[in-house]
């Protein structure tokens, strides 16, 4: 037991002594401990830079060492980074190490410490870490200014898609600081009362001037610019080639441009590994590389794209002679151009000694490649182009490439040329239409213009040679200038052969021959109907004679303004489909099928007519109503043409709006599209264009409509026509009353004429002395010439025409103007004309119309008596005085009629001495007539009031007429 205690005590002492030794060894510093640690900040790159030394190394001693670096944030215990940094260390070496912080270094305080370990093989194990250096504090906030608010990092450049951490630092702990990126608020995590951190994930490029991120409180704002660039891409399609073996032109597709404002842009460099040469490219898409004069054949070029964030490279290895891209040829000419041939010449740029090139000649016509040929070329070459079309524009082009090692064709170079004209190669396609008129044939020739490929130039005119087959010597030539496409000939009943040729400036085409036979052929071909489809009109026929050279189908629309069209068919053809873009729905087309005999005579086989698409009639016929009776009327639309409609007319529907529930016999009740009910009568015959509507009620009206119907529908149900049915007896009355009225009128006229005759014979208004029965008695008794006082024996006195009017409303018949409305500016005079042989004392006596010119009468003179006339003084004196005049008038006044009915215009007896006087008719008898100078009647003057209505101009005539209103008070 005691032994055990002694042993135990000795063990403990030994252990204690060992621990003491060990602690002494470990506490002694290692000879290669890192010292002089210095920590600095690069704010732009957010990096911590460490530098230190390792002492106690001897000269030329190099030890491989490991340095362990710890970085803490905010406090030393918060270690955020531990890294072992291995590096061989030499004597007096300053060691560097950097660390990039994701959090801006200005945001919080960082702490750094370091220790070392010798990892060199020359130092035997065991190896121990040295002691840690003391913590180095890195507080970037100390160097900030006095601004109240900061945001970090400043002007950071990142790639698109990166995650960025930012923070704000406030001088005072504030809680009402808000931050935003552009105009979008961002939210972060508070690290301390003064610091908040924001993590922006997957930032995107917004603009070249950078993304604005800012924080603000009510009084301050601070912000940063975050430059987000596109990710630098690897150059694509990097390629180099040479045109002359002297320089290389390298091109590539750079992809996105990562350039930002205030930031250096991406740059490109070329590096050739064999020669070791580098070139900084000036452009972003291409670069020139000078080929070495030592005839280096193989090149290994590396293109490096680089910006501040990334670097990308791409390499190519090639043989220079395999990358020859020649320049385009030059001096391209065309010579010896004819209608069908031309020769092309050109030159090529030499490519060093490697001068054999392969050139490709291409001939283009109408936008397509017609010919293509390869030619081996040294310097100069030519190619003969053949099989060309006359008068055709061609483009010929040439390009070249290296003959031995094809790389790329050069650019094309070309020339345009046009071949010369040639004679037309084809006969014009000719057809005809023949009409027989009065013993002659009217032949209308049609021909189609030659296609460009057959015309071989501009057609100038067409020659038409008419050869009379019955009289071989009779040939007629017509020259018709282009662009006419037909002509009309009038031929007699002989057979003719017609040659038509087209001519250009070079020559004449082959002739197209047709024969017009004296026999017009089969005229009795019946016209059949044909139905068109979307594909056209399908026609078929039966050949009549086996010896034909072909068939012709011609057609024309119903519209005569449209021209005849035709189609030539082979002799073995018995059907065809006529297609044309000109076919329109609703237009009737007439087709004729001819066979062409070996004598080139056309015989009509069949006639067809049809529509490409039938359309319902758009108009109804104009219907005339006739034979209107009390029970029926007739409808007629004979002017309606069934051939010129938009479909085949199958008949007509006569619609009658019913007056009763039941329709008339023959009509059936139908419901129209507007839901109205009508009676319909169907006429099946399209040529029946009359209809009689019967069984109508008298004294009523009916509405009817006539519309055609076809296979595709009937005409519009637009306006019904109204017909009023007369009563039953009106026509009878008209037939009786009208003749009666006529007879009555005829009887009245006869009575009137008889009465006039009787009046003339028995009691005329003014007896004609020559016609007096007294004369016949005298003649009978004395049997000598009856003597009547000669007018020439009498001094003419006066003539008065008395107009007896009722009231002042009597008007002139002609002028339709009342007398009271008539104003005579001059006094009305009644001239007494001397008889032809009158030799009395004065030629004329005139009376002034005192009715209209009292003032003149007061003057006591007659100013209208011609001065040269010598009026008997006695008469003048008698007449110039109103009193005398009145007396004279009273003495001679004769009122033959004793007055006219009121309002009646009449011709009155006129006395030679009668004169107009003022005063009432009733007063006349108070003054007995005085001695008359002449008691004999003179030639009577009958004056119609209406016809003799005086006009102001007529006042000055020699036979003025004074008209008096009998009923008007005298003045």
């Amino acid at each position, binding site marked *: 037991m005691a032994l055990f205690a002694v042993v135990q005590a000795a063990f403990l002492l030994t252990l204690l002594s060992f621990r003491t030794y060990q602690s002494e060894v470990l506490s002694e510093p290692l000879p290669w401990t890192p010292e002089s640690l210095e920590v600095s900040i690069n704010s732009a790159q957010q990096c911590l830079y460490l530098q230190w030394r390792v002492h106690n190394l001897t000269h030329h001693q190099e030890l491989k060492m490991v340095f362990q670096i710890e970085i803490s944030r905010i406090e030393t215990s918060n270690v955020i980074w531990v890294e072992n940094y291995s590096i061989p260390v030499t004597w007096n070496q300053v060691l560097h190490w950097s660390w990039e912080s994701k959090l801006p270094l200005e945001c919080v305080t960082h702490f750094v410490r370091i220790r070392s370990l010798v990892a060199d093989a020359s130092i035997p194990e065991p190896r121990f870490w040295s002691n840690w250096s003391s913590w180095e504090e890195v507080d970037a906030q100390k160097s900030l200014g006095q601004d109240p608010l900061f945001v970090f990092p400043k002007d950071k450049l990142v790639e698109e898609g990166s995650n960025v951490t930012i923070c704000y630092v406030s001088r005072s702990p504030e809680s009402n600081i808000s931050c935003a990126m*552009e*105009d979008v608020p961002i939210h972060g995590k508070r690290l301390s009362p003064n610091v908040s951190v924001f993590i922006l994930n997957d930032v995107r490029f917004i*603009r070249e001037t950078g993304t*604005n991120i*800012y924080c603000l409180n009510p009084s301050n704002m601070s*912000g940063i610019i975050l430059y987000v660039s596109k990710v630098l891409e690897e150059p694509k399609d990097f390629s180099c080639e040479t045109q002359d073996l002297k320089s290389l032109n390298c091109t590539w597709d750079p992809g996105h441009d990562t350039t930002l*404002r*205030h930031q250096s842009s991406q740059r490109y460099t070329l590096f050739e590994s064999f020669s070791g040469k580098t070139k900084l490219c000036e452009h972003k898409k291409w670069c020139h590389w000078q080929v070495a004069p030592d005839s280096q054949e193989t090149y290994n070029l590396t293109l490096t794209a680089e910006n501040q964030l990334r670097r990308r490279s791409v390499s190519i290895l090639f043989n220079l002679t395999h990358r020859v891209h020649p320049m385009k040829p030059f001096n391209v000419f065309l010579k010896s151009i004819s209608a069908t041939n031309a020769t092309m010449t050109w030159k090529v740029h030499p490519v060093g000694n490697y001068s054999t090139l392969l050139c490709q000649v291409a001939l283009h016509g109408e936008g397509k490649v017609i010919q293509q040929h390869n030619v081996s070329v040294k310097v100069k070459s030519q190619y003969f182009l053949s099989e060309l079309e006359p008068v055709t524009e061609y483009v010929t082009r040439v390009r070249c490439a290296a003959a031995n090692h094809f790389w790329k064709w050069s650019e094309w170079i070309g020339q345009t040329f046009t071949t010369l004209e040639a004679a037309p190669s084809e006969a014009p396609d000719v057809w005809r239409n023949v009409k027989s008129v009065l013993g002659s044939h009217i032949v209308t020739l049609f021909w189609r213009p030659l296609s460009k490929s057959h015309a071989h130039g501009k057609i100038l005119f067409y020659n038409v040679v008419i050869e009379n087959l019955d009289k071989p010597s009779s040939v007629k030539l017509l020259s018709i200038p282009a662009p006419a496409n037909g002509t009309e000939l009038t031929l007699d009943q002989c057979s003719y052969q017609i040659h038509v040729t087209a001519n250009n400036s070079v020559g004449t085409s082959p002739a197209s021959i047709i024969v017009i036979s004296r026999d017009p052929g089969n005229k009795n071909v019946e016209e059949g109907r044909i139905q068109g489809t979307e594909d056209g009109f399908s026609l078929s026929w039966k050949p009549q004679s086996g010896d034909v050279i072909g068939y012709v189908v011609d057609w024309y629309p119903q519209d005569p303004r449209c021209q005849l069209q035709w189609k030539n068919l082979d002799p073995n053809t018995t059907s065809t489909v006529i297609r044309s873009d000109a076919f329109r729905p609703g237009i009737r087309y007439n087709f004729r099928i001819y066979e062409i005999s070996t004598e080139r005579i056309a015989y009509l086989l069949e006639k067809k007519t049809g529509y490409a698409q039938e359309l319902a009639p758009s108009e109804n016929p104009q219907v005339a109503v006739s034979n209107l009776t009390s029970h029926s009327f007739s409808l007629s639309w004979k002017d309606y043409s069934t051939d010129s409609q938009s479909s085949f007319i199958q008949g007509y529907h006569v619609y009658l709006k019913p007056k009763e529930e039941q329709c008339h016999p023959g009509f059936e009740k139908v419901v129209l599209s507007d839901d109205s009910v009508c009676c319909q009568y169907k006429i099946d015959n399209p040529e029946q264009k009359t209809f009689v509507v019967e069984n109508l009620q008298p004294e009523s009206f009916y509405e009817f409509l006539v519309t055609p119907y076809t296979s595709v529908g009937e005409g519009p149900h637009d306006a019904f026509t109204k017909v009023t049915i007369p009563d039953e007896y009106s026509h009878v009355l008209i037939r009786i009353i009208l003749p009666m009225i006529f007879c009555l009128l005829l009887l009245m006229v006869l009575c009137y004429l008889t009465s006039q005759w009787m009046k003339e014979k028995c009691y005329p208004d003014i007896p004609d002395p020559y016609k007096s029965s007294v004369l016949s008695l005298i003649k009978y008794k004395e049997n000598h010439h009856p003597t009547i006082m000669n007018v020439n024996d009498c001094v003419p006195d006066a003539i008065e025409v008395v107009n007896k009017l009722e009231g002042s409303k009597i008007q002139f018949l002609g002028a339709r103007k009342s007398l009271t409305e008539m104003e005579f500016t001059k006094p009305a005079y009644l001239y007494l004309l001397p008889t032809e042989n009158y030799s009395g004392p004065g030629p004329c006596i005139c009376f002034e119309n005192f009715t209209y010119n009292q003032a003149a009468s007061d003057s006591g003179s007659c100013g209208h008596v011609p001065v040269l006339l010598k009026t008997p003084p006695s008469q003048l004196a008698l007449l110039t005085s109103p009193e005398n005049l009145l007396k004279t008038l009273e003495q001679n006044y004769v009122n033959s009629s004793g007055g006219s009915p009121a309002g009646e215009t009449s011709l009155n007896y006129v006395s030679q001495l009668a004169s107009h006087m003022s005063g009432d008719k009733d007063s006349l008898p108070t003054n007995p007539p005085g001695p008359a100078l002449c008691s004999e009647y003179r030639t009577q003057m009958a004056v119609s009031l209406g016809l003799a209505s005086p006009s102001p101009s007529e006042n000055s005539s020699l036979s003025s007429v004074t008209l008096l209103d009998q009923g008007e008070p005298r003045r």
Partner: protein
Amino acid sequence: MRAQLPRRVLLSLVLRLLFLKPVVTGSCSGDDQELLKQLQRQTDFMQDTSRLLDPYMHAQGLDVPGLKEHCQEHPGVFPRENALHGLSRRGFLQTLNAKLGHVLHRLTILQQDLPKVQLTVKRYIYGIRNNIYCLAQLLPGSSETAEPTQAGTEDSPPPPPASDTFQRKLQGCQFLRGYHRFMHSVGQVFHKWRESPSRSRRHSPHRALRKGAYRMQPSMRGKRLMPRGQLPQ
């Protein structure tokens, strides 16, 4: 001097292109009203924010809520309008000329941010300065005493250029807003000058202006303009 000549010719062409009556190669218009009219038009043009400020704000991303409110004129950079009205004519023209020189310098700095518009605006400013020069020629030198070359000396000095890009953005925006406001104020002053020619006649009678102009012209022919910013006393 030879180097100056093409510049003047270029300036003349630019002004002709701008339909302005040119003041070229020492040949100024003697019509002060016409010069005032042209200056009025030019200031009307330049006070329009769509010429400079709006493109700048759009290019810098400052035309968003939260940022555009901070694009306000910094006091002290440009004189206020009442200060301009208080200046004599010569003093006003000198101040305007000097401020336009500063604007030209600042536009050169902002050239990278306004590559398209700043050249046109610079041409206009050259045109304004030439008309200022010609108008100053019509002022009688004896009637005016020495004037301060800067107006609004009571204002605080302009802020120093900011160290970070964000602040420089804002400062550029504030500067341009102040410039447009300043040109508006200048236009108001010219408008007042045009409306009150009596003062102009009192201080510089029209006849005297013309005499001065005519008297100046022979000596100006064949000579270049005075250096920019240097107005006659």
